[in-house]
């Protein structure tokens, strides 16, 4: 799953991404396209350290029962440019 996002992966988006990722049971990994290492999408420290710059493409992979829903939700979050609403 690939997508282009408008802002860099700064602290706040990183927190939102990991908060969302933690709602799923699936193992979820994320990386900046082309990076060698996949990062645990549930680790705030690691996602923040990923330093995805503005306009980069990030990729998700997930394994587990709700993997599909997880990737769907995460890509929607990024596509929507990390809106503030969270519940």
């Amino acid at each position, binding site marked *: 799953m690939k997508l282009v996002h408008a802002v860099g992966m700064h602290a706040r988006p990183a927190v939102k991404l990991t908060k969302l990722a*933690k709602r799923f049971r699936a193992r979820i990994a994320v990386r900046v396209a082309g990076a060698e290492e996949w990062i645990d999408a549930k680790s*705030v420290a690691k996602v923040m350290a990923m330093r995805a710059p503005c306009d980069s493409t990030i990729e998700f992979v997930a394994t587990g029962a709700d993997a599909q829903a997880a990737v769907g939700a995460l890509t929607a979050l990024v596509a929507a440019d990390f809106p503030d609403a*969270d519940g």
Partner: protein
Amino acid sequence: MSGNVGIVIVSHSIDVAKGAADMVRQMVGEDVQVAFCGGNAEGGLGTDVALILQAINSIWSPKGVAVMVDLGGAETNSEMAVEMLPAEKRGSIVICNAPIVEGAVMAAAEAAGGGSLERVRAAAEELSAG
């Protein structure tokens, strides 16, 4: 009341403590209870066992409390505060070895996801692990 691990921020400076707590609230949201204290009883720089105790008690829950500290005295006074608590509370409090601002945000993000006290501590300390 939140069913998540709470975060206590203990700095020598009330301004630092409040600023770190503001960052947690703004970045992580209201799913996590945050208490903070800073300065000594006279209002100067320092830490105060009674104030730390008060902060911990204000948000303590069986799920636990992760305490973030800055320099030396903040840690020793936090340890002293924890020792003064009844045994049943003492067991569910950890003092994290992490940078105070970053650690508080990481810990709160983990706590907001419902993480256990051990996981919250690990998230905060991941930063100093290198």
